[in-house]
Protein backbone atom coordinates (compact mmCIF):
# COMPACT_ATOMS: atom_id res chain seq x y z
CA UNK A 1 0.00 0.00 0.00
CA UNK A 2 1.85 3.04 -1.24
CA UNK A 3 1.08 6.49 0.10
CA UNK A 4 0.38 5.11 3.56
CA UNK A 5 2.08 6.95 6.41
CA UNK A 6 2.40 3.81 8.46
CA UNK A 7 2.12 0.24 7.29
CA UNK A 8 2.50 -2.38 10.01
CA UNK A 9 2.79 -5.97 8.83
CA UNK A 10 2.69 -8.99 11.06
CA UNK A 11 4.32 -7.33 14.06
CA UNK A 12 5.02 -9.84 16.78
CA UNK A 13 6.49 -9.10 20.21
CA UNK A 14 7.22 -11.81 22.74
CA UNK A 15 8.28 -11.78 26.36
CA UNK A 16 10.91 -14.30 27.30
CA UNK A 17 10.32 -16.05 30.59
CA UNK A 18 12.03 -19.05 32.09
CA UNK A 19 9.29 -21.33 30.80
CA UNK A 20 9.44 -19.94 27.27
CA UNK A 21 8.51 -17.00 25.08
CA UNK A 22 4.96 -15.64 25.22
CA UNK A 23 3.56 -13.31 22.58
CA UNK A 24 2.12 -10.08 23.96
CA UNK A 25 1.60 -8.78 20.45
CA UNK A 26 0.84 -11.61 18.08
CA UNK A 27 1.16 -10.57 14.47
CA UNK A 28 -0.74 -7.32 14.14
CA UNK A 29 -1.17 -5.54 10.81
CA UNK A 30 -2.74 -2.20 9.98
CA UNK A 31 -2.14 0.89 7.90
CA UNK A 32 -2.63 4.57 8.56
CA UNK A 33 -2.86 7.61 6.35
CA UNK A 34 -1.52 11.06 7.25
CA UNK A 35 -3.74 12.93 9.66
CA UNK A 36 -5.78 9.86 10.47
CA UNK A 37 -6.89 9.09 14.02
CA UNK A 38 -6.83 5.39 14.84
CA UNK A 39 -8.32 4.19 18.10
CA UNK A 40 -6.65 1.11 19.53
CA UNK A 41 -8.95 -0.46 22.10
CA UNK A 42 -8.94 -3.56 24.21
CA UNK A 43 -9.07 -4.76 27.78
CA UNK A 44 -6.19 -4.45 30.18
CA UNK A 45 -3.38 -6.78 29.15
CA UNK A 46 -4.49 -7.12 25.55
CA UNK A 47 -1.14 -5.77 24.37
CA UNK A 48 -1.96 -2.18 23.43
CA UNK A 49 0.99 -0.56 25.17
CA UNK A 50 3.38 -3.25 24.00
CA UNK A 51 2.13 -2.69 20.46
CA UNK A 52 2.73 1.06 20.72
CA UNK A 53 6.22 0.62 22.14
CA UNK A 54 7.05 -2.04 19.55
CA UNK A 55 6.36 0.38 16.74
CA UNK A 56 9.22 2.66 17.77
CA UNK A 57 11.55 -0.05 19.04
CA UNK A 58 11.24 0.70 22.75
CA UNK A 59 10.72 -2.86 23.93
CA UNK A 60 13.33 -3.86 26.52
CA UNK A 61 14.29 -7.33 27.69
CA UNK A 62 12.71 -9.68 28.59
CA UNK A 63 10.59 -8.41 25.72
CA UNK A 64 11.66 -8.67 22.09
CA UNK A 65 10.13 -7.78 18.77
CA UNK A 66 10.65 -10.96 16.83
CA UNK A 67 8.77 -10.58 13.56
CA UNK A 68 7.14 -8.14 11.22
CA UNK A 69 7.71 -4.84 9.50
CA UNK A 70 6.97 -1.30 10.58
CA UNK A 71 7.00 0.68 7.35
CA UNK A 72 6.96 4.35 8.19
CA UNK A 73 7.06 6.67 5.18
CA UNK A 74 8.44 3.73 3.26
CA UNK A 75 11.27 2.88 5.63
CA UNK A 76 11.21 -0.25 7.78
CA UNK A 77 11.84 1.02 11.29
CA UNK A 78 12.82 -2.45 12.40
CA UNK A 79 15.87 -2.54 10.19
CA UNK A 80 17.09 1.05 9.92
CA UNK A 81 19.25 0.72 13.01
CA UNK A 82 19.20 2.31 16.43
CA UNK A 83 20.73 5.66 15.56
CA UNK A 84 18.43 6.25 12.60
CA UNK A 85 15.52 5.13 14.74
CA UNK A 86 16.53 7.61 17.40
CA UNK A 87 16.17 10.37 14.82
CA UNK A 88 12.65 9.22 14.08
CA UNK A 89 11.61 9.01 17.72
CA UNK A 90 10.42 12.29 19.12
CA UNK A 91 10.82 13.99 15.78
CA UNK A 92 8.63 12.13 13.32
CA UNK A 93 6.88 9.80 15.73
CA UNK A 94 6.20 11.02 19.24
CA UNK A 95 4.77 8.96 22.06
CA UNK A 96 2.79 9.96 25.10
CA UNK A 97 3.03 7.38 27.84
CA UNK A 98 0.26 5.71 29.73
CA UNK A 99 1.60 6.99 33.03
CA UNK A 100 2.99 10.34 32.07
CA UNK A 101 3.24 11.27 35.70
CA UNK A 102 6.20 8.90 35.92
CA UNK A 103 7.46 9.89 32.50
CA UNK A 104 8.92 13.16 33.67
CA UNK A 105 12.28 13.07 35.40
CA UNK A 106 11.75 14.40 38.93
CA UNK A 107 15.14 16.09 39.22
CA UNK A 108 15.19 18.00 35.92
CA UNK A 109 13.18 21.11 35.14
CA UNK A 110 10.30 20.90 32.73
CA UNK A 111 12.12 23.25 30.39
CA UNK A 112 15.22 21.07 30.28
CA UNK A 113 13.14 17.99 29.50
CA UNK A 114 11.23 19.74 26.77
CA UNK A 115 14.13 21.68 25.31
CA UNK A 116 16.12 18.48 24.93
CA UNK A 117 13.34 17.04 22.78
CA UNK A 118 14.01 19.85 20.32
CA UNK A 119 17.77 20.20 20.57
CA UNK A 120 18.52 16.50 20.31
CA UNK A 121 17.09 16.60 16.82
CA UNK A 122 17.98 20.00 15.43
CA UNK A 123 20.62 22.61 15.94
CA UNK A 124 18.32 25.13 17.56
CA UNK A 125 19.77 27.83 19.83
CA UNK A 126 18.59 27.56 23.43
CA UNK A 127 16.52 30.79 23.49
CA UNK A 128 14.68 29.78 20.32
CA UNK A 129 14.04 26.30 21.72
CA UNK A 130 12.66 27.83 24.92
CA UNK A 131 10.34 30.01 22.87
CA UNK A 132 8.99 26.92 21.13
CA UNK A 133 8.54 25.15 24.45
CA UNK A 134 6.63 28.12 25.87
CA UNK A 135 4.43 28.22 22.78
CA UNK A 136 3.72 24.48 23.03
CA UNK A 137 2.81 24.78 26.71
CA UNK A 138 0.48 27.65 25.94
CA UNK A 139 -1.07 25.56 23.18
CA UNK A 140 -2.08 22.84 25.63
CA UNK A 141 -3.58 25.39 27.98
CA UNK A 142 -0.94 25.92 30.63
CA UNK A 143 -1.21 29.46 31.92
CA UNK A 144 1.83 31.72 32.27
CA UNK A 145 4.19 29.16 30.73
CA UNK A 146 7.07 31.68 30.83
CA UNK A 147 7.32 31.27 34.59
CA UNK A 148 6.17 27.67 34.90
CA UNK A 149 8.70 26.38 32.41
CA UNK A 150 11.57 26.49 34.90
CA UNK A 151 9.70 24.60 37.58
CA UNK A 152 10.12 20.92 38.38
CA UNK A 153 7.53 18.26 37.60
CA UNK A 154 6.43 17.95 41.23
CA UNK A 155 5.32 21.57 41.14
CA UNK A 156 2.74 20.67 38.52
CA UNK A 157 -0.59 18.99 39.20
CA UNK A 158 -1.36 15.63 37.59
CA UNK A 159 -3.41 17.20 34.84
CA UNK A 160 -0.70 19.77 34.16
CA UNK A 161 1.99 17.10 33.91
CA UNK A 162 -0.19 15.26 31.45
CA UNK A 163 -0.36 18.44 29.41
CA UNK A 164 3.40 18.81 29.64
CA UNK A 165 3.77 15.31 28.20
CA UNK A 166 1.35 16.14 25.42
CA UNK A 167 3.08 19.45 24.70
CA UNK A 168 6.39 17.59 24.56
CA UNK A 169 5.00 15.25 21.95
CA UNK A 170 3.82 18.21 19.87
CA UNK A 171 7.13 20.09 19.92
CA UNK A 172 8.62 18.77 16.72
CA UNK A 173 5.34 18.63 14.80
CA UNK A 174 5.60 14.87 14.32
CA UNK A 175 3.81 12.99 11.57
CA UNK A 176 2.47 10.50 14.06
CA UNK A 177 1.71 10.62 17.77
CA UNK A 178 1.17 7.41 19.70
CA UNK A 179 -0.93 8.41 22.70
CA UNK A 180 -1.14 5.60 25.25
CA UNK A 181 -4.19 6.28 27.41
CA UNK A 182 -2.99 9.80 28.04
CA UNK A 183 -6.10 10.75 29.92
CA UNK A 184 -6.82 7.78 32.17
CA UNK A 185 -4.99 9.32 35.12
CA UNK A 186 -7.11 12.44 34.89
CA UNK A 187 -10.57 13.30 36.07
CA UNK A 188 -13.41 13.23 33.59
CA UNK A 189 -13.71 16.95 32.86
CA UNK A 190 -10.02 17.38 32.13
CA UNK A 191 -10.16 14.18 30.09
CA UNK A 192 -12.80 15.61 27.80
CA UNK A 193 -10.94 18.89 27.56
CA UNK A 194 -7.66 17.27 26.59
CA UNK A 195 -9.43 14.97 24.18
CA UNK A 196 -10.97 17.88 22.36
CA UNK A 197 -7.67 19.75 22.33
CA UNK A 198 -5.80 16.78 20.91
CA UNK A 199 -8.37 16.40 18.19
CA UNK A 200 -8.08 20.04 17.21
CA UNK A 201 -4.33 19.86 17.30
CA UNK A 202 -4.23 16.75 15.14
CA UNK A 203 -6.57 18.36 12.65
CA UNK A 204 -4.63 21.62 12.53
CA UNK A 205 -1.21 20.09 12.14
CA UNK A 206 -2.12 17.10 10.03
CA UNK A 207 -0.62 14.78 12.61
CA UNK A 208 -1.80 11.21 12.57
CA UNK A 209 -2.79 9.83 15.95
CA UNK A 210 -2.87 6.35 17.45
CA UNK A 211 -5.08 6.71 20.47
CA UNK A 212 -4.70 3.76 22.83
CA UNK A 213 -7.51 3.25 25.31
CA UNK A 214 -9.72 0.62 26.89
CA UNK A 215 -12.68 2.92 26.47
CA UNK A 216 -14.66 2.58 23.25
CA UNK A 217 -16.67 5.63 24.26
CA UNK A 218 -13.61 7.84 23.99
CA UNK A 219 -12.73 6.32 20.66
CA UNK A 220 -16.17 6.96 19.22
CA UNK A 221 -15.76 10.70 19.80
CA UNK A 222 -12.27 10.94 18.45
CA UNK A 223 -11.25 8.33 15.96
CA UNK A 224 -11.63 7.91 12.21
CA UNK A 225 -10.91 4.21 12.45
CA UNK A 226 -10.72 1.74 15.27
CA UNK A 227 -8.74 -1.42 15.91
CA UNK A 228 -9.92 -3.79 18.62
CA UNK A 229 -7.23 -5.84 20.30
CA UNK A 230 -7.70 -9.07 22.18
CA UNK A 231 -4.91 -11.25 23.54
CA UNK A 232 -2.25 -9.68 21.35
CA UNK A 233 -4.23 -9.74 18.12
CA UNK A 234 -6.31 -7.19 16.28
CA UNK A 235 -9.63 -9.03 16.19
CA UNK A 236 -11.50 -6.35 14.33
CA UNK A 237 -10.54 -3.19 12.51
CA UNK A 238 -12.40 -0.75 10.35
CA UNK A 239 -13.99 2.68 9.96
CA UNK A 240 -15.36 3.98 13.23
CA UNK A 241 -18.98 3.97 12.09
CA UNK A 242 -18.74 0.53 10.52
CA UNK A 243 -17.24 -1.08 13.59
CA UNK A 244 -19.40 0.68 16.16
CA UNK A 245 -22.65 0.31 14.27
CA UNK A 246 -22.06 -3.09 12.69
CA UNK A 247 -19.52 -4.99 14.78
CA UNK A 248 -18.69 -8.39 13.36
CA UNK A 249 -16.56 -9.79 16.15
CA UNK A 250 -18.34 -10.95 19.33
CA UNK A 251 -15.66 -9.30 21.45
CA UNK A 252 -16.30 -5.90 19.85
CA UNK A 253 -19.98 -6.41 20.51
CA UNK A 254 -19.19 -7.21 24.12
CA UNK A 255 -17.17 -4.03 24.48
CA UNK A 256 -19.97 -1.99 22.94
CA UNK A 257 -22.49 -3.44 25.33
CA UNK A 258 -20.43 -2.25 28.25
CA UNK A 259 -20.51 1.42 27.20
CA UNK A 260 -22.98 3.23 29.47
CA UNK A 261 -24.55 5.35 26.71
CA UNK A 262 -25.53 2.27 24.73
CA UNK A 263 -27.74 1.09 27.54
CA UNK A 264 -31.01 2.51 28.76
CA UNK A 265 -30.36 4.78 31.74
CA UNK A 266 -30.42 2.87 34.98
CA UNK A 267 -29.99 -0.53 33.42
CA UNK A 268 -27.05 -2.63 34.44
CA UNK A 269 -24.06 -2.64 32.12
CA UNK A 270 -23.42 -5.91 30.43
CA UNK A 271 -19.85 -6.83 31.09
CA UNK A 272 -18.11 -9.51 29.10
CA UNK A 273 -18.00 -12.59 31.27
CA UNK A 274 -14.63 -13.82 32.44
CA UNK A 275 -11.31 -12.06 32.26
CA UNK A 276 -8.69 -11.69 29.61
CA UNK A 277 -6.33 -14.68 29.62
CA UNK A 278 -2.81 -14.07 30.84
CA UNK A 279 0.09 -14.42 28.42
CA UNK A 280 0.81 -17.98 29.43
CA UNK A 281 -2.78 -19.19 29.54
CA UNK A 282 -4.11 -18.44 26.09
CA UNK A 283 -6.32 -21.26 24.86
CA UNK A 284 -5.68 -23.15 21.65
CA UNK A 285 -7.80 -21.99 18.75
CA UNK A 286 -9.54 -18.66 19.16
CA UNK A 287 -8.24 -16.91 22.26
CA UNK A 288 -11.69 -15.53 22.99
CA UNK A 289 -13.60 -18.79 22.76
CA UNK A 290 -13.91 -19.46 26.50
CA UNK A 291 -15.77 -16.19 26.91
CA UNK A 292 -17.62 -16.26 23.61
CA UNK A 293 -21.32 -17.05 23.30
CA UNK A 294 -21.01 -17.83 19.61
CA UNK A 295 -18.16 -20.29 19.98
CA UNK A 296 -18.46 -23.57 18.11
CA UNK A 297 -16.29 -26.67 17.67
CA UNK A 298 -14.24 -25.02 14.95
CA UNK A 299 -13.22 -22.25 17.34
CA UNK A 300 -11.39 -24.74 19.54
CA UNK A 301 -9.66 -26.34 16.59
CA UNK A 302 -7.88 -23.51 14.91
CA UNK A 303 -7.45 -19.79 15.06
CA UNK A 304 -9.70 -17.79 12.78
CA UNK A 305 -8.00 -15.98 9.91
CA UNK A 306 -8.66 -12.45 8.83
CA UNK A 307 -11.85 -11.96 6.87
CA UNK A 308 -12.24 -8.79 4.90
CA UNK A 309 -15.64 -7.14 4.55
CA UNK A 310 -16.80 -4.87 1.77
CA UNK A 311 -16.01 -1.46 3.33
CA UNK A 312 -12.48 -2.21 4.51
CA UNK A 313 -13.73 -3.59 7.80
CA UNK A 314 -12.06 -6.86 8.71
CA UNK A 315 -12.28 -9.36 11.56
CA UNK A 316 -10.88 -12.60 12.89
CA UNK A 317 -13.80 -14.86 13.71
CA UNK A 318 -15.24 -18.16 12.52
CA UNK A 319 -18.79 -17.15 13.28
CA UNK A 320 -19.02 -13.38 12.88
CA UNK A 321 -22.20 -11.60 13.82
CA UNK A 322 -24.36 -11.46 10.69
CA UNK A 323 -25.34 -7.98 9.58
CA UNK A 324 -28.73 -6.88 10.79
CA UNK A 325 -28.91 -9.75 13.26
CA UNK A 326 -28.21 -8.16 16.63
CA UNK A 327 -28.28 -10.32 19.74
Amino acid at each position, binding site marked *: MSGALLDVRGLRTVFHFLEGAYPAVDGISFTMRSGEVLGLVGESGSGKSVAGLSLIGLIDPPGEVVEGEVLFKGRNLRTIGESAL*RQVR*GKEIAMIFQDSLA*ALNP*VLTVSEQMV*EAIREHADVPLPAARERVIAALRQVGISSPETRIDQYPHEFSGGMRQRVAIATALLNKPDLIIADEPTTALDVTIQGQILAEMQTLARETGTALIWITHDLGVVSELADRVAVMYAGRIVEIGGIDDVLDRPCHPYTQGLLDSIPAENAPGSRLRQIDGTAPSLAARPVGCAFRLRCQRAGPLCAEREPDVTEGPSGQSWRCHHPIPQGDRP
Partner: protein
Amino acid sequence: MAVLLAVSLVVFLAVFAVGDPVELLINPEATQHEREMMVRALGLDRPVWMQYLTFLGNAMQGDLGISFVHGEPALQIIIERMPATFELVFFALLIASLVGIPLGLYVGLNSDASLSRAIMTGSILGYSIPNFWKGMMLILLLSVWLHWLPTSGRGETVDILGIPVSFLTWDGVRHLVMPVLNLAIPNTALMIRLTASGAAEARTQDYVKFARAKGVRPQRIVRRHILRNILIPVITVLGIEFGALIAFSTITETVFAWPGMGKLLITSIYRLDRPVVVSYVMLITFLFVLINLIVDLIYAALDPRVKLMDRAP
Protein backbone atom coordinates in the same frame (compact mmCIF):
# COMPACT_ATOMS: atom_id res chain seq x y z
CA MET B 1 23.67 21.64 70.06
CA ALA B 2 21.57 19.22 72.03
CA VAL B 3 23.45 16.42 70.35
CA LEU B 4 26.78 17.85 71.41
CA LEU B 5 25.62 18.26 75.01
CA ALA B 6 24.31 14.72 75.27
CA VAL B 7 27.42 13.25 73.73
CA SER B 8 29.65 15.25 76.03
CA LEU B 9 27.90 13.89 79.10
CA VAL B 10 27.96 10.29 77.95
CA VAL B 11 31.58 10.42 76.93
CA PHE B 12 32.63 12.18 80.08
CA LEU B 13 31.04 9.54 82.26
CA ALA B 14 32.30 6.70 80.12
CA VAL B 15 35.84 7.94 80.30
CA PHE B 16 35.45 8.35 84.02
CA ALA B 17 34.36 4.77 84.39
CA VAL B 18 37.28 3.38 82.44
CA GLY B 19 39.99 4.01 84.98
CA ASP B 20 41.92 6.36 87.19
CA PRO B 21 44.57 8.16 85.23
CA VAL B 22 46.47 9.04 88.40
CA GLU B 23 47.91 5.57 88.62
CA LEU B 24 49.37 5.86 85.16
CA LEU B 25 50.46 9.44 85.31
CA ILE B 26 52.17 9.64 88.61
CA ASN B 27 55.60 8.36 89.32
CA PRO B 28 55.14 5.24 91.50
CA GLU B 29 57.89 6.53 93.78
CA ALA B 30 56.03 9.75 94.55
CA THR B 31 55.12 10.44 98.14
CA GLN B 32 51.55 10.60 99.33
CA HIS B 33 51.84 14.38 99.53
CA GLU B 34 53.11 14.69 95.99
CA ARG B 35 50.26 12.51 94.83
CA GLU B 36 47.67 14.73 96.45
CA MET B 37 49.29 17.84 95.01
CA MET B 38 49.14 16.32 91.56
CA VAL B 39 45.56 15.17 91.89
CA ARG B 40 44.50 18.63 93.04
CA ALA B 41 46.42 20.31 90.22
CA LEU B 42 44.63 18.18 87.68
CA GLY B 43 41.28 18.81 89.35
CA LEU B 44 40.68 15.11 89.89
CA ASP B 45 39.84 15.47 93.58
CA ARG B 46 36.50 17.13 92.96
CA PRO B 47 33.24 15.18 92.50
CA VAL B 48 32.30 14.02 89.02
CA TRP B 49 29.49 16.46 88.48
CA MET B 50 31.73 19.37 89.38
CA GLN B 51 34.37 18.14 87.00
CA TYR B 52 31.75 17.90 84.31
CA LEU B 53 30.40 21.38 84.92
CA THR B 54 33.91 22.83 84.88
CA PHE B 55 34.55 20.97 81.66
CA LEU B 56 31.31 22.27 80.19
CA GLY B 57 32.03 25.84 81.21
CA ASN B 58 35.46 25.69 79.68
CA ALA B 59 34.18 23.93 76.61
CA MET B 60 31.85 26.85 75.96
CA GLN B 61 34.93 29.01 75.65
CA GLY B 62 36.58 26.58 73.33
CA ASP B 63 38.77 25.08 76.00
CA LEU B 64 38.41 21.34 76.18
CA GLY B 65 41.10 20.83 78.78
CA ILE B 66 44.81 20.23 78.94
CA SER B 67 46.21 16.87 77.96
CA PHE B 68 47.46 14.97 81.03
CA VAL B 69 50.22 13.46 78.95
CA HIS B 70 51.37 16.25 76.69
CA GLY B 71 50.64 19.21 78.94
CA GLU B 72 49.17 21.09 75.99
CA PRO B 73 45.56 21.99 75.21
CA ALA B 74 43.83 18.79 74.12
CA LEU B 75 42.01 20.42 71.26
CA GLN B 76 45.20 21.84 69.88
CA ILE B 77 46.90 18.47 69.91
CA ILE B 78 44.03 16.94 67.99
CA ILE B 79 43.78 19.76 65.51
CA GLU B 80 47.49 19.45 64.80
CA ARG B 81 46.87 15.87 63.74
CA MET B 82 43.82 16.74 61.69
CA PRO B 83 45.42 17.66 58.35
CA ALA B 84 47.10 14.26 58.13
CA THR B 85 43.80 12.44 58.62
CA PHE B 86 41.89 14.78 56.35
CA GLU B 87 44.43 14.29 53.61
CA LEU B 88 44.10 10.53 53.89
CA VAL B 89 40.32 10.56 53.89
CA PHE B 90 40.04 13.12 51.14
CA PHE B 91 42.18 11.18 48.71
CA ALA B 92 40.59 7.89 49.67
CA LEU B 93 37.13 9.21 48.88
CA LEU B 94 38.35 10.99 45.75
CA ILE B 95 39.68 7.71 44.40
CA ALA B 96 36.59 5.86 45.54
CA SER B 97 34.39 8.30 43.62
CA LEU B 98 36.53 8.57 40.51
CA VAL B 99 36.86 4.81 40.20
CA GLY B 100 33.67 3.60 41.85
CA ILE B 101 31.06 5.78 40.18
CA PRO B 102 32.07 5.05 36.55
CA LEU B 103 32.51 1.34 37.28
CA GLY B 104 29.18 1.23 39.09
CA LEU B 105 27.52 3.01 36.22
CA TYR B 106 28.93 0.47 33.81
CA VAL B 107 27.72 -2.42 35.94
CA GLY B 108 24.27 -0.89 36.42
CA LEU B 109 23.80 -0.28 32.72
CA ASN B 110 25.27 -3.60 31.55
CA SER B 111 24.25 -5.94 34.32
CA ASP B 112 24.56 -9.01 32.10
CA ALA B 113 28.07 -8.34 30.83
CA SER B 114 30.74 -10.68 32.16
CA LEU B 115 32.90 -7.67 33.00
CA SER B 116 30.09 -6.50 35.26
CA ARG B 117 30.11 -9.77 37.14
CA ALA B 118 33.87 -9.51 37.56
CA ILE B 119 33.55 -5.98 38.91
CA MET B 120 30.82 -6.98 41.34
CA THR B 121 32.82 -9.95 42.60
CA GLY B 122 35.81 -7.70 43.10
CA SER B 123 33.70 -5.22 44.99
CA ILE B 124 32.43 -7.88 47.35
CA LEU B 125 36.02 -8.84 48.11
CA GLY B 126 37.05 -5.23 48.50
CA TYR B 127 34.25 -4.61 50.89
CA SER B 128 34.54 -7.67 53.06
CA ILE B 129 38.27 -8.06 53.64
CA PRO B 130 39.12 -6.61 57.06
CA ASN B 131 41.00 -3.35 56.99
CA PHE B 132 44.00 -4.33 59.09
CA TRP B 133 44.58 -7.50 57.11
CA LYS B 134 44.33 -5.68 53.82
CA GLY B 135 46.77 -3.08 55.17
CA MET B 136 49.29 -5.69 56.14
CA MET B 137 48.95 -7.44 52.80
CA LEU B 138 49.61 -4.14 51.07
CA ILE B 139 52.72 -3.63 53.16
CA LEU B 140 53.86 -7.15 52.48
CA LEU B 141 53.35 -6.82 48.75
CA LEU B 142 54.39 -3.26 47.97
CA SER B 143 57.05 -2.70 50.63
CA VAL B 144 58.51 -5.96 51.77
CA TRP B 145 58.50 -7.88 48.50
CA LEU B 146 58.56 -5.24 45.80
CA HIS B 147 60.34 -2.51 47.79
CA TRP B 148 58.31 0.13 45.99
CA LEU B 149 56.89 2.03 48.90
CA PRO B 150 57.86 2.91 52.46
CA THR B 151 55.98 0.95 55.12
CA SER B 152 54.98 3.69 57.49
CA GLY B 153 54.96 7.33 58.49
CA ARG B 154 53.82 10.39 56.62
CA GLY B 155 56.88 11.53 54.67
CA GLU B 156 57.90 15.01 53.73
CA THR B 157 55.28 17.75 53.96
CA VAL B 158 54.95 21.27 52.64
CA ASP B 159 52.74 23.99 54.06
CA ILE B 160 49.81 25.37 52.16
CA LEU B 161 48.09 28.22 53.97
CA GLY B 162 49.88 27.04 57.09
CA ILE B 163 48.53 23.51 56.77
CA PRO B 164 51.11 20.79 56.26
CA VAL B 165 50.24 18.55 53.30
CA SER B 166 52.19 15.66 51.90
CA PHE B 167 50.69 15.09 48.48
CA LEU B 168 52.89 17.77 46.91
CA THR B 169 56.22 16.07 47.60
CA TRP B 170 57.34 12.85 45.98
CA ASP B 171 58.29 11.40 49.34
CA GLY B 172 54.90 12.43 50.71
CA VAL B 173 53.03 10.78 47.88
CA ARG B 174 55.01 7.57 48.32
CA HIS B 175 53.96 7.46 51.96
CA LEU B 176 50.41 8.41 51.13
CA VAL B 177 49.72 5.70 48.56
CA MET B 178 49.23 2.66 50.78
CA PRO B 179 47.11 4.10 53.57
CA VAL B 180 44.96 5.90 51.00
CA LEU B 181 44.57 2.67 49.03
CA ASN B 182 43.66 0.82 52.16
CA LEU B 183 40.87 3.26 52.93
CA ALA B 184 39.87 3.67 49.29
CA ILE B 185 39.34 -0.01 48.48
CA PRO B 186 36.26 -0.66 50.64
CA ASN B 187 34.84 2.72 49.73
CA THR B 188 35.35 2.14 46.03
CA ALA B 189 33.49 -1.10 46.48
CA LEU B 190 30.74 0.76 48.29
CA MET B 191 30.51 3.36 45.52
CA ILE B 192 30.37 0.65 42.85
CA ARG B 193 27.51 -1.12 44.54
CA LEU B 194 25.62 2.04 45.31
CA THR B 195 25.98 3.45 41.79
CA ALA B 196 25.26 0.11 40.16
CA SER B 197 22.03 -0.48 42.03
CA GLY B 198 20.99 3.13 41.48
CA ALA B 199 21.68 2.95 37.75
CA ALA B 200 20.00 -0.42 37.37
CA GLU B 201 16.92 0.99 39.02
CA ALA B 202 16.95 4.32 37.21
CA ARG B 203 17.29 2.85 33.76
CA THR B 204 14.02 0.96 34.06
CA GLN B 205 12.15 4.08 35.09
CA ASP B 206 9.51 5.53 32.82
CA TYR B 207 11.34 8.82 32.52
CA VAL B 208 14.27 7.05 30.90
CA LYS B 209 11.96 5.36 28.43
CA PHE B 210 10.21 8.62 27.78
CA ALA B 211 13.56 10.30 27.15
CA ARG B 212 14.31 7.55 24.65
CA ALA B 213 10.91 8.09 23.06
CA LYS B 214 11.90 11.74 22.66
CA GLY B 215 14.95 10.59 20.72
CA VAL B 216 17.47 11.71 23.33
CA ARG B 217 20.95 10.30 22.72
CA PRO B 218 22.01 7.47 25.05
CA GLN B 219 25.00 9.42 26.41
CA ARG B 220 22.78 12.28 27.42
CA ILE B 221 20.26 9.93 29.01
CA VAL B 222 23.02 8.52 31.18
CA ARG B 223 24.61 11.86 31.94
CA ARG B 224 21.52 13.92 32.72
CA HIS B 225 18.66 11.57 33.45
CA ILE B 226 20.31 8.64 35.19
CA LEU B 227 23.43 10.10 36.80
CA ARG B 228 21.53 13.07 38.13
CA ASN B 229 19.20 10.75 40.01
CA ILE B 230 21.95 8.47 41.31
CA LEU B 231 24.03 11.37 42.54
CA ILE B 232 21.56 12.05 45.31
CA PRO B 233 22.20 8.85 47.33
CA VAL B 234 25.86 8.83 46.31
CA ILE B 235 26.51 12.29 47.75
CA THR B 236 24.68 11.38 50.92
CA VAL B 237 26.76 8.27 51.45
CA LEU B 238 29.97 10.10 50.57
CA GLY B 239 29.18 12.63 53.29
CA ILE B 240 28.50 9.93 55.85
CA GLU B 241 31.64 8.06 54.83
CA PHE B 242 33.69 11.22 55.12
CA GLY B 243 32.67 11.61 58.73
CA ALA B 244 33.01 7.93 59.46
CA LEU B 245 36.48 7.68 57.94
CA ILE B 246 37.76 10.65 59.88
CA ALA B 247 36.42 9.15 63.06
CA PHE B 248 37.40 5.56 62.38
CA SER B 249 40.53 5.66 60.30
CA THR B 250 42.23 4.47 63.48
CA ILE B 251 43.02 0.99 62.19
CA THR B 252 44.58 2.19 58.97
CA GLU B 253 46.50 4.90 60.76
CA THR B 254 47.77 2.41 63.28
CA VAL B 255 48.82 -0.16 60.70
CA PHE B 256 50.70 2.43 58.65
CA ALA B 257 51.87 4.49 61.65
CA TRP B 258 50.17 7.49 60.08
CA PRO B 259 50.40 10.46 62.45
CA GLY B 260 46.73 11.40 62.31
CA MET B 261 43.88 11.78 64.76
CA GLY B 262 43.02 8.11 64.81
CA LYS B 263 46.43 7.07 65.97
CA LEU B 264 46.37 9.83 68.58
CA LEU B 265 43.07 8.49 69.87
CA ILE B 266 44.43 4.99 70.34
CA THR B 267 47.50 6.24 72.18
CA SER B 268 45.42 8.52 74.35
CA ILE B 269 43.04 5.76 75.31
CA TYR B 270 45.95 3.55 76.36
CA ARG B 271 47.31 6.35 78.50
CA LEU B 272 43.89 7.30 79.89
CA ASP B 273 44.44 10.83 78.67
CA ARG B 274 40.87 11.90 79.44
CA PRO B 275 40.89 15.44 78.03
CA VAL B 276 42.19 14.26 74.67
CA VAL B 277 39.69 11.41 74.40
CA VAL B 278 36.79 13.62 75.41
CA SER B 279 37.90 16.41 73.10
CA TYR B 280 38.31 13.93 70.29
CA VAL B 281 34.80 12.63 70.63
CA MET B 282 33.41 16.15 70.97
CA LEU B 283 35.22 17.25 67.87
CA ILE B 284 34.08 14.26 65.86
CA THR B 285 30.51 14.81 66.98
CA PHE B 286 30.78 18.40 65.91
CA LEU B 287 32.18 17.29 62.56
CA PHE B 288 29.33 14.84 62.07
CA VAL B 289 26.76 17.51 62.75
CA LEU B 290 28.54 19.84 60.36
CA ILE B 291 28.80 17.20 57.63
CA ASN B 292 25.15 16.33 58.02
CA LEU B 293 24.29 19.94 57.52
CA ILE B 294 26.42 20.17 54.40
CA VAL B 295 24.97 16.95 53.00
CA ASP B 296 21.48 18.29 53.61
CA LEU B 297 22.35 21.45 51.73
CA ILE B 298 23.78 19.53 48.78
CA TYR B 299 20.83 17.19 48.89
CA ALA B 300 18.42 20.08 48.66
CA ALA B 301 20.40 21.54 45.79
CA LEU B 302 20.35 18.23 43.89
CA ASP B 303 16.83 17.12 44.60
CA PRO B 304 14.25 19.77 43.82
CA ARG B 305 11.61 17.83 45.73
CA VAL B 306 13.44 18.42 48.99
CA LYS B 307 12.81 21.67 50.76
CA LEU B 308 15.10 22.32 53.69
CA MET B 309 12.26 23.64 55.80
CA ASP B 310 10.45 20.31 55.70
CA ARG B 311 13.50 18.41 56.79
CA ALA B 312 14.46 20.42 59.83
CA PRO B 313 14.58 17.93 62.69
